[in-house]
């Protein structure tokens, strides 16, 4: 920091352009893959829910898919709400 910055009366902030570049690199890397391949997430989710539904009466509306794309690694989390032991009856599965 030069002595001139002292007079600018603004707290020094990390340059935001480097954040812009990093964010773009990550999101574009993922989008470019997506252009050459069909979006598989909808199907993946359907199939996972179908498999789970074979064993437990679940409400397909209570499935939550979350994703965090990263540079080296992404995390895909599929959260399926399962009924408690007393409620494992079709009654719950019918609720939307």
């Amino acid at each position, binding site marked *: 920091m030069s002595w*001139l910055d002292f*007079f*600018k*009366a*603004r707290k020094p*902030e990390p340059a*935001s*352009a480097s*954040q*812009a570049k990093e*964010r773009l690199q*990550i*999101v574009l890397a993922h*989008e470019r893959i*997506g*252009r050459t391949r069909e*979006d598989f*997430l*909808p199907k993946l*989710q359907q199939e996972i829910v179908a498999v789970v539904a074979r064993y437990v009466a679940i409400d*397909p*509306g209570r*499935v*939550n*898919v*979350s*994703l*965090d*794309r*990263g540079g080296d690694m992404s995390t895909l989390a599929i959260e399926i709400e399962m009924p408690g032991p007393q409620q494992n009856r079709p009654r719950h599965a019918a609720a939307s």
Partner: protein
Amino acid sequence: MAEVIVVTSGKGGVGKTTSSAAFATGLAQRGKKVVVIDFDVGLRNLDLIMGVERRVVFDIVNVIQGEARLNQALIRDKRVDTLSILPASQTRDKDALTKEGVGQIIEELAKDNDYILCDSPAGIEKGALLALYFADQAIVVTNPEVSSVRDSDRILGVLQSKSKRAEDKKDPVKEHLLVTRYDPARVEKGEMLKLDDIREILAIPLLGVIPESESVLRASNTGTPVVMDAESVAGQAYKDAVGRFLGEKVEHRFLEPQKKGIFSRLFGGRAA
């Protein structure tokens, strides 16, 4: 019952997405339940401006085509918990949006939100028409520039003839003027249209004036809606506009060139 607000302009690149993000965040910061929808199918950007691009799983087209449920496609904001984002699809084309599909989504979102903001794409084609079709209110984003003012006038005509409210012969869509990228120094030099001139020509109630500000670029770099930057003049102007939208009486600020202190005159530095 939620109010549906379209953020529209006709002309491209005037600040619709910046304003949608700022308004949605500002309303949510005031405790309202808000969802903001990106209607720019094929060119989504709201996710970047909101800083949620890494978390997009499903989008509005997935929901319309029955490939995902609405609550799965909604991304909850991590900073303001009453705010969520419904992204546009990046890969499909605009024809994937249907009036019925959008109508169902809005109806469903209306159940547990106070405001549904629709970030319109530029133009007056399908995407823009669908973004405004269900609107109760419209924020018309206008730059102090001839082509922008003309396009705003055009979009006002569309709101008055092609919206659902117009078709159903209900009360018209409530219109608000939001002037953005206003540079008082250039207005003073006579290089840029004056606020009063824009108001006179468009003749709709003024919601706010957002000054041209460097902090808008910084906000988009970091994916933080500019209204969260308390030091930014643009952020403060958006905050004021949100207050006015909620019926508060807030004076307009930043309409005059900023008086520069001796140091900033010596060492440069523009509007924060």
